């Protein structure tokens, strides 16, 4: 059977698609593998900062104890928030009770932040100096330890409410 040379055009497209898919899959193989890990966050930390087994084991332990502490504080924050919501809905003026409720939720929130910062420092101590600095920069940028104004330069509250 005589084949037309025009069959090379779809064949070329097929080869192009295969080449694209192969290189794309190769480039993204590492993050895709990390996404399948049982604990994605820790797997990312291990890969990003090239942790060896002993470093990873120590950081995992720090992570576990921080998780327990964080869960305890989160429970308290949730309870205080429920109480505050109920108190705020029951009145239309800022009473002393309401003010102290607000301060209490803020205090708990600050406790969470300082606990998180302790955890971040503890993790950083397990890393080599350059990696530790990069880790802290990344985490201080991404977490709520240091509150940052949002894009636009105006002052914002935590839930996005703006004061122009």
């Amino acid at each position, binding site marked *: 059977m005589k084949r*037309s*040379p*025009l069959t*090379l*055009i779809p*064949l*070329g*497209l097929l*080869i*192009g*698609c*295969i*080449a*694209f*898919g*192969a*290189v*794309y*899959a*190769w*480039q*993204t193989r*590492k*993050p*895709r593998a*990390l*996404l399948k890990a049982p*604990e*994605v*966050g*820790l*797997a*990312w*930390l291990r890969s*990003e900062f090239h942790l060896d087994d002993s470093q990873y084991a120590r950081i995992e332990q720090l*992570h576990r104890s*921080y*998780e327990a502490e*964080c869960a305890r*504080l*989160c429970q308290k*924050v949730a309870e205080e928030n429920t109480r505050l919501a109920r108190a705020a809905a029951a009145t239309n003026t800022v009473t002393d009770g309401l003010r102290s409720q607000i301060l209490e939720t803020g205090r708990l*929130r600050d406790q*969470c932040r300082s606990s*998180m910062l302790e*955890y*971040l420092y503890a993790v950083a101590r397990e890393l080599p100096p350059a990696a530790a600095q990069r880790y802290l920069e*990344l*985490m201080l940028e*991404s*977490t*709520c*330890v240091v509150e940052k104004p949002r894009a636009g330069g105006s002052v914002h509250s*935590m839930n996005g409410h703006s004061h122009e």
Partner: protein
Amino acid sequence: MSFRTRIVERRERRTKACSMNTRRTDSRDEALSRLLRSWEVDRDAPLHMADDVWRRIAARGKADEEPWWKFSWAVWLRRPVLAFGYLGLIALLGAGTGAVRGRAAAESLSGELQGRYVMAIDPFAEPHR
């Protein structure tokens, strides 16, 4: 012995050697000819080979002669070098695009992974977008 005599002798010797060589070559040629006569090609050329060859020659000539605005893929791709070049170029383009898009996707996925870590440690973090 005179110079003339020496030249004549040398010429005779050379003629004699030449005739010996010719006889040897003749006999070898004879053997080769016999061998060649006995050799039979037991495989036919592919059907339509001659037609194909002429068609390719015609296509090449046509491609060379035709002006660029009468460009024909069919004629152009009939040349093996250009056909393989086309396939190689497409493969290279695919691989290059895959590398660029793959790197961008890997960076985006890496950002998502970092976000998952932050979500795990920060109770007030917003989901990664």
